[in-house]
């Protein structure tokens, strides 16, 4: 059986031109420069290992296939290694396209819990990877301060980071509950 099902065929109804416009508005006008040569996919290490197809992603963003792009798990398989962008003969800002598509996906609720958790660590400590007791001991042993001179040691600096996350709505975006200091679900 090689025929596509009706549900697998894309039509004009799947196209949302405002999606493409978001890339253009963000200054990523090079999305329109892609001529689909496939150099990007040829060098993509995630393309070798996962269903992630970077050439197809750029095409879908240009066509306005919003749901196709943001609901696809493989959007998150890119390590942002820049191999595609370095080799692109049309100088398309491919990594910017990936990140912009992810921003739109995140707003639509497609966020991994583990990522939201890392975000919550920055809100509660200022660090994506906060200190732990073992490292405190190591730091002391080698004569560094037990706490690094970061938000860990300066509560007022941490407050600034928290204010920023509130102002930009990052706390709501990841579903952070200020009262419990944890994610809502």
């Amino acid at each position: 059986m090689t025929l596509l099902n009706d549900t697998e065929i894309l039509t004009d109804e799947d196209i949302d031109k405002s999606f493409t416009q978001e890339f253009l508005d963000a200054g990523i006008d090079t999305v329109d420069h892609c001529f689909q040569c496939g150099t990007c996919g040829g060098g993509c290490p995630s393309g070798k290992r996962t269903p992630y197809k970077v050439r197809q992603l750029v095409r879908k963003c240009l066509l306005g296939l919003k749901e196709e792009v943001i609901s696809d798990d493989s959007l998150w398989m890119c390590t942002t290694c820049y191999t595609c962008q370095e080799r692109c003969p049309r100088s398309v800002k491919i990594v910017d396209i990936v990140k912009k598509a992810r921003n739109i996906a995140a707003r639509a609720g497609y966020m991994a819990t583990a990522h939201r958790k890392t975000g919550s660590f920055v809100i509660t400590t200022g660090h994506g990877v906060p200190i732990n007791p073992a490292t405190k001991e190591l730091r002391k042993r080698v004569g560094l301060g037990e706490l690094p001179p970061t938000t860990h040691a300066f509560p007022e600096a941490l407050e600034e980071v928290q204010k920023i996350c509130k102002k930009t709505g990052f706390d709501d975006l990841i579903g952070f509950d200020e009262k419990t200091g944890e994610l809502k679900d």
Partner: protein
Amino acid sequence: MEIAYFLGCIMNNRYPGVEKSTKILFDKLGIDLKDMEGASCCPAPGVFGSFDEKTWASIAARNITIAEDMGMDIMTECNGCFGSLFECNHMLKENEAKKEEINEVLSDVDREFKGEVNVKHFAQVLRDDVGFEKLSSIVEKPLNLNVAAHYGCHFLKPTEDIGIEKSAEDPQILDDLIEITGAKSVPYEEKMLCCGAGGGLRSRDIDVTLSYTKTKLENMEAAGVDAIVNVCPFCHLQFDVGQTEVNKKYGTNFSIPVFHLAQLYGLAMGLGADELTLDSHLIDADPALSKVLEEYDKLAAE
């Protein structure tokens, strides 16, 4: 020379030996590392950059304003931090509208991004500000190690903006810095391949991440290296912790010691495993350390 020293997260909160070694190295080189008091996560490009550009740029810009207040350029030893801070600095310097947008956020915490400083990578400072000749002078114990140089991704790329190397296909900077210590940078297959951890992939899908790491380890082992040398604490963690995870998942038995470039210089200055916190690594560094010590004994005997 004074420079604002950006710590980040993984170096200072997991591998403090990297920080310690850097402080000793820069003390010898006569460069004053100044604390950036109250700096935070860069923030992590894979989570913040992928979720919300405005939050990412605001937190990065806040970090940059700390160095602007100090009147100094920034140095970081992590590719992720370098990627975030360099890219944000570059973007806000080039794009007036973005700068205004971010400064509107920063005004709530009484800060303003002015665009007055540069963001530099540790390896770039060693090559361009210190220079190879001066750097050679601090090597007290040349290392007879064969190592695999791991560049990582956000150190050189996008090359068009960063400009540390013209191309990232066959760069030299890390190999050159390694060889100053006496160690040999050995070629291996797919040398420029990512460690697999970046872009939020390690926390999103560890199996994909480990498939990258496994390829790297296989290629490094095939080249017969004594150690892996990196310039990024996140890659460092991926090769250290990730190596044990690869072994568990694939039933392999990789045991290649992992050094950040700063730790390699620490060894070349004669610092011990204790000071470099190598004893806290999951992958035992002893095989590489024993090889170095044997060479010293041989030289001493001659």
